[in-house]
C-alpha cells in the first residue's frame, strides 16, 4: 500500500507541509503523524516533544443549558472554571467559564465520540450553543520533563506543577497569541494540551520548536503515545 498523504483527505491540518517527511496514520476522516524517523520516539516524548493533534476531534458548548446537556450525555464536568477532567474513555472536558466547556477527543477512538457530538448537535430553543473549536483552534501536545520551562520562555503564567497542577487550565497569551493550556498528562507522561488560533499555528509551531531547542525538543508522532 502506498504511504498515506495529507492531500488525499479533504480535512487538513495547516501544518501538513511541515510533516512531509513523517509517516502518517489514519485518524477518522483524516490523517495524523504516526512517527518521524524509524526509531522509537518514546524517549523523545519523555524528554521534550511536540505533536500536532489538530485533526483530532474537539468541540465546545456554551450557554446556560450546556452543563445539563453534557451531563445528560454522560460527561463528567469540572467543578469550577479553568479546570479539566479526563473522561473514562480518554477524552477530556475543560471548563472555560461558568457556562462554557471544551471537549477534547481521545486518540483511543480516533476522536469518534467527540466528532459525533459535533455532528449530532441541533440548534434548539435551549441555551446550549455549539462552538466550532476544531476549526477555530489548532491543537498541539507538548510533552516531557521540560514543558513548564519551555512555556516559561513564551508565556507569563506560572505553569510549574506546584502552581499549575494536573487538571488546571490557563487561558493566556503565549508568544503573543492567545492560547488555552491544559495540564492533562497521558498516563505518566507530563503533557500540556495547547489550543491556539488555527490561523496562527504555523507561526506558533515554529515559536514552540525554537523554545524547545535548548531541551533537545523535536516534533514527534502519536505512535509512541499509544
Amino acid at each position: 500500500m502506498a504511504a498515506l498523504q495529507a492531500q488525499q483527505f479533504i480535512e487538513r491540518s495547516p501544518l501538513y507541509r511541515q510533516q512531509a517527511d513523517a509517516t502518517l496514520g489514519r485518524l477518522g476522516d483524516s490523517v495524523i503523524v504516526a512517527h518521524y524517523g524509524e526509531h522509537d520516539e518514546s524517549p523523545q516524548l519523555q524528554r521534550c516533544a511536540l505533536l500536532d493533534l489538530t485533526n483530532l476531534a474537539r468541540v465546545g458548548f456554551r450557554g446556560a443549558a450546556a452543563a445539563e446537556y453534557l451531563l445528560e450525555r454522560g460527561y463528567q464536568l469540572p467543578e469550577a472554571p479553568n479546570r479539566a477532567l479526563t473522561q473514562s474513555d480518554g477524552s477530556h472536558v475543560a471548563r472555560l467559564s461558568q457556562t462554557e466547556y471544551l471537549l477534547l477527543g481521545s486518540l483511543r477512538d480516533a476522536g469518534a465520540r467527540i466528532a459525533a457530538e459535533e455532528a449530532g448537535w441541533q440548534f434548539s430553543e435551549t441555551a446550549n450553543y455549539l462552538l466550532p473549536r476544531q476549526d477555530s483552534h489548532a491543537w498541539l501536545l507538548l510533552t516531557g520533563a521540560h514543558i513548564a520551562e519551555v512555556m516559561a520562555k513564551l508565556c507569563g503564567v506560572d505553569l510549574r506543577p506546584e502552581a499549575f497542577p494536573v487538571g488546571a487550565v490557563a487561558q493566556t497569551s503565549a508568544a503573543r497569541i492567545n492560547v488555552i493550556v491544559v495540564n492533562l498528562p497521558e498516563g505518566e507522561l507530563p503533557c500540556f494540551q495547547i489550543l491556539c488560533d488555527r490561523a496562527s499555528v504555523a507561526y506558533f509551531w515554529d515559536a514552540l520548536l525554537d523554545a524547545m531547542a535548548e531541551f533537545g525538543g523535536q516534533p514527534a508522532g502519536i505512535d509512541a503515545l499509544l
Partner: protein
Amino acid sequence: MKIMPCPLNGPRNISEFTYGGEFKQMPDPATCSDADWADYVFNSDNRAGLVVEWWMHNASSYWFLAERHTVTDEIVRTFDPKEIFTRRVDFAAPAQAREATV
C-alpha cells in the same frame, strides 16, 4: 509588571488585559439633554482616588470591573459585572420614552 486579579482567571500580568474605560452610567439617550449626552460621551472624571473601571482579559474575552485607586495604583477589588447589572436592560421606544433601567 503589575498583577491584575481577574475574577475568572486569577492573578495575571496586566499585559494580558485591555483597559475598557471608566465605568459610567449612560444617561437615557431618549430624554437627556444634548449637553448631558456630550458630557457622557466626551468627558472623563479622572478622579484622584478610588475609581471603578472596565477591564477585559484578552485570552478569554472576559469583561469585568475593577476598583482601583488612581493615586496608589492599588487594585482594591475586581468583580463580575453581574454584581451591578443584575437584570436585563431594555430601551423604550422614543415615543413613550421613559427612563432606561441602566
